[in-house]
Each structure stands twice: as C-alpha cells, then as structure tokens.
C-alpha cells in the first residue's frame, strides 16, 4: 500500500506522518509497515545537534500510526465515507527501547492484535532495523473515551 492510501487513512501530515509504506496486511493477524528515517527529519535539528537519534516517543507514534492503519483495514472502513476512517485515541503504552534509531535506518514495524473489541483494542508492536529489534510496545487505544 502506497503513501496516497496511507494518507486516506491517517490524518497526520508532514512533519508528523511516520509511515511510508505498508508492506503486508493479513486480516485479524498482522500488519507490517515501513518508516524510512532520513537525515532531513525535522527532529534531528534538535535531537541532538551533534548526535542524531530518533526520539523514542516518535517511534511510539510510528507504532501507533501503524496500529491505526491495521485497525482501519481490519474493520474494513469505507474511506470514501465522510466519517471514515476511524480515529483512535491512545490510552496506555508499555514500551521498551532497545537500540537507537539513526539517519539511514529503515524501521520495519510489525503490529499484531492482543485483544480487539468494537471500539477499542490492545496492539503489540515490534520495530526492527536490519532484523534487529530496536523497540517494542503494547498500545491500548479507543475510538472515544
């Protein structure tokens, strides 16, 4: 799935759209997304001027965006309808950061459902660079609170 379709699902835009491509989607099972990290990212100006490292919270954001795409594809949202797609609010995060992500890294994010309901869900996300796990998290989100 390319960036045009991603933009129809995610309301986020530059500089806050953190998914470039969807590599794979299997209903009820998983979604694999790609985020290419370039040296031109806004946040590298300040985080940090001498040592560019992708902020962990933004890795969580990328995982959250991948999770929103998964949930929308899973619910078979009709993207041409005015109230679609579904927006999910992040309620809780359990995360672990294992390795810094730097310019030039291709971050592969795998999301799998832990528990899904009509209006909410718990999603497990694993981020890898060159096959090595850089972060993992469990995200809880709901359509409304």
């Amino acid at each position, binding site marked *: 799935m390319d960036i045009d379709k991603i933009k129809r699902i995610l309301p986020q835009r530059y500089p806050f759209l953190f998914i470039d491509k969807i590599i794979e989607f299997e209903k009820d099972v998983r979604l694999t997304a790609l985020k290419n990290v370039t040296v031109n990212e806004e946040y590298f100006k300040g985080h940090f001027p001498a040592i560019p490292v992708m902020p962990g919270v933004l890795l969580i954001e990328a995982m959250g965006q991948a999770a929103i795409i998964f949930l929308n594809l899973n619910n078979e949202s009709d993207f041409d309808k005015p109230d679609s797609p579904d927006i999910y609010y992040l309620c809780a995060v359990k995360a672990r950061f294992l390795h810094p992500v730097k310019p030039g890294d291709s971050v592969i994010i795998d999301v799998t459902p832990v*528990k899904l309901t009509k209006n909410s869900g718990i999603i497990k996300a694993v981020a890898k660079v060159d096959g090595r796990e850089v972060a993992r998290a469990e995200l809880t989100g709901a359509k409304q609170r």
Partner: protein
Amino acid sequence: MPKIDVQTLEKELRSIVAEITEVEPEKITLEANFVEDLGMDSMMALEVLASVEKKYNLKIPEDYLMKVTNLSNLVEIAKKFLKEK
C-alpha cells in the same frame, strides 16, 4: 492445564487487577467496585481481560467487559471460561 483452586485463582486475578489499577492488593476485596472504589476505566478493564486471557490462555468475548465490576465476578467469569476450556 492443571486445575487451579479458587484461592489461587483469586490471588492471581487480584494481582493482575492490582498491577493494572496500581491499587494495593489489600484494598482489592472481592466486593470492591472496580470503577467507584479502585478508579478503573474501560481501557483498564480491557487490559484486565486481555491479561486474564493471556495468563490462562482463554478467549473471553467482548460482552463480558461490562460484567467485570468487582473481583468476585472476575473470578466467576475466569472460572466459567476455564471450565469450558
């Protein structure tokens, strides 16, 4: 799965609830209301259900989310699904 007695089940479920609500286990009596007494919200309830499913390898349907109002009925629900397993 080996059969677990009710006391162990109650103790294990209490520790799941304690971890998610961040309330001390002693305050989680069988009758303490999850929402009013322990400050649980719907997302925490979902996390409790997901943890119970993971721990005992169960599948608990979404309808049971609203029925989990205190430890006593969480134990009953877990018992019911453990028996059906």
